[in-house]
């Protein structure tokens, strides 16, 4: 491990290390290094060459921190000014509590979510420390999906189980059965996703969990080194997907936020001209029925669609004889 660290990173660590060590009875230096992610050589040097000389005016021995290193252990005393760690910033407190609340949401009604579980106990203490009363000042719902589907997929990811699932392809409005090797489970923008190798597509695919109708382990396992690093993109319009050019009225400005698009330009007479990728024709048909009279297709190379025919098909349902039951 490198011993190079910025003085800012060292300062942030020392402000946490000093009170922690002072409250213990001679912890091992190796444990301190591990716990505070502080390279061992750097830590021993900083404790003996820096912290030992920290104190207040006039820096007489009784006004200095005492550091004793002996036999691989360290003792710190007279560190009165640093007897407690720096408190969390509001952003840090929010990040910790949001993370904890997310996990409570994921584990759902399991043993981790009881008052005896360490996560809930820790969250309650943390909330009390930042001054929150009984009600949690933060709540997080990362996504929505059936508990059994989520549970099966999470187990499949961690145990490398191949699963067979029935998946609704929204853009083509059809159900597919596919065997997949789920690599990573993640949430983005209020939805759960699973990135995986799909044996049907013979390629890596990201699936939205709330569109999985059923999922079952096949009993087979797969080999994969696991996916880490940044979260995968959820929609990646292919460069060669056909494009559609729409004119939309101002009332549909939300379309700009909701859909990835190549470009959007303001029209002089109001509204927007927007160019976006069309992954499949049914997707565009559905979009146009939703947007209704406030949007018009004015260009692009996407397959022409007949909005009137699609609307007529839906209307037919309303005009058939009254549904029984």
């Amino acid at each position, binding site marked *: 491990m490198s011993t190079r660290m910025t003085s800012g990173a060292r300062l942030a660590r020392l402000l946490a290390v000093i009170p922690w060590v002072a409250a213990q009875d001679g912890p091992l230096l190796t444990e301190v290094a591990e716990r505070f992610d502080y390279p061992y050589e750097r830590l021993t040097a900083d404790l003996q060459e820096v912290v030992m000389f920290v104190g207040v*005016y006039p820096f007489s021995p009784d006004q200095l921190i005492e550091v004793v290193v002996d036999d691989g252990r360290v003792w710190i005393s007279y560190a009165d000014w640093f007897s407690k760690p720096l408190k969390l910033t*509001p952003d840090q407190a929010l990040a910790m509590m949001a993370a904890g609340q997310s996990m409570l949401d994921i584990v759902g009604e399991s043993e981790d979510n009881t008052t005896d579980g360490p996560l809930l106990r820790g969250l309650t203490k943390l909330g009390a420390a930042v001054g929150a009363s009984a*009600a949690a000042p933060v709540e997080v719902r990362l996504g929505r999906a059936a508990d059994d589907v989520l549970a099966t997929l999470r187990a499949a990811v961690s145990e490398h189980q191949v699963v067979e699932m029935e998946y609704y392809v929204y853009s083509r409005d059809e159900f597919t059965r596919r065997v997949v090797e789920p690599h990573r489970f993640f949430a983005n923008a209020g939805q759960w996703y699973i990135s995986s190798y799909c044996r049907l597509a013979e390629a890596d695919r990201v699936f939205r969990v709330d569109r999985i109708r059923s999922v079952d382990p096949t009993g087979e396992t797969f080999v994969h080194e696991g996916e880490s690093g940044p979260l995968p993109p959820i929609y990646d319009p292919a460069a060669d997907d056909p494009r559609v050019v729409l004119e939309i009225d101002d009332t549909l400005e939300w379309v700009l936020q909701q859909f990835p698009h190549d470009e959007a330009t303001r029209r002089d007479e109001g509204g927007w001209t927007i160019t976006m990728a069309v992954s499949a024709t049914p997707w565009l048909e559905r979009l146009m029925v939703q947007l209704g009279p406030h949007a018009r297709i004015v260009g692009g190379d996407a397959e022409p669609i007949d909005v009137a025919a699609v609307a007529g098909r839906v209307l037919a349902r309303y005009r058939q004889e009254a549904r029984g039951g």
Partner: protein
Amino acid sequence: MSKLERLLNLIAALLNADRPLTTEQLRERIEGYPEAPESYRRAFERDKEALRSMGIPIRTIEVPGTDPPKTGYRILREEYAGTDPQLAPDELAALHVAANLVRLEGVDGDEAVLRLGGRAADESEPSLAALPTDPNLGPLFTAATEHRTVALRYGGADRTFDPWRVSFLRGHWYVTGWDHLRSEQRLYRVDRIDGGVEVGGVTEHERPADVATTPTRLAPWELGVKAPVTARVWIEADQSPWARHNLGPEAVVAEHDDGSIEVEFEVRNPDGFRAMVLTFLDGAEVLGPPELRDEVISWLEALAEPAS
């Protein structure tokens, strides 16, 4: 004298002070600063900003009894340290695992873990989510925990607002609380707040004991200003699982032999409702109330049979 030692001594001096220290006093008490007054002033300013950016609350206070008034600095211990949550090892480990799996963008979660007592868990699992951040989130959260009133601008109006809770739902941050302007509970989307949030004093307005009143569903058809009506919708078998998860099992009021279902839910925004129902195309049908059904029919008629 290293910069690290100088900064630690500066913090110790400011924490140790029972009255504000002037820059002259600090120069006498801390080694390692340049001699020339201008160089010293610049070095001290840099140090002060570096410490403040870490969240160290250095107060700038007028020194009592000075005339002309002199500026002094100190750190109050209660502002520096806050309350120790006294986490047990398993609690810290559980929070650490959570912080690794779900991150708030732009916030160093590792730094927070250090302040709580250091690394306590293995970091091998890949992260689950990165929550978007917003400059107003921290202030709203602080106000919610400390029961403070904030000033903010939303929907074209300046408001006095008591935040109760921030919520990440459907991919966005929201804040629930009491709007003094309207004298009612309100829910605002944080990224639609116009400009900054200014945190004020402690509020006197009572907060409900249980703020579980935050709507857990913030669907487009639920966020509206119209009086709520209960819509009844038929949904075909193929789409019924989606509807069940998204509307909640309690919304299902009838199940047919062919697997199709009927759901009932509250609608406050007819436009959002129509857009949702139409994503199913002919896989869904609005059964009632008549005004919602008729509205969808007229919409479809205008598309299917455009006036020529």
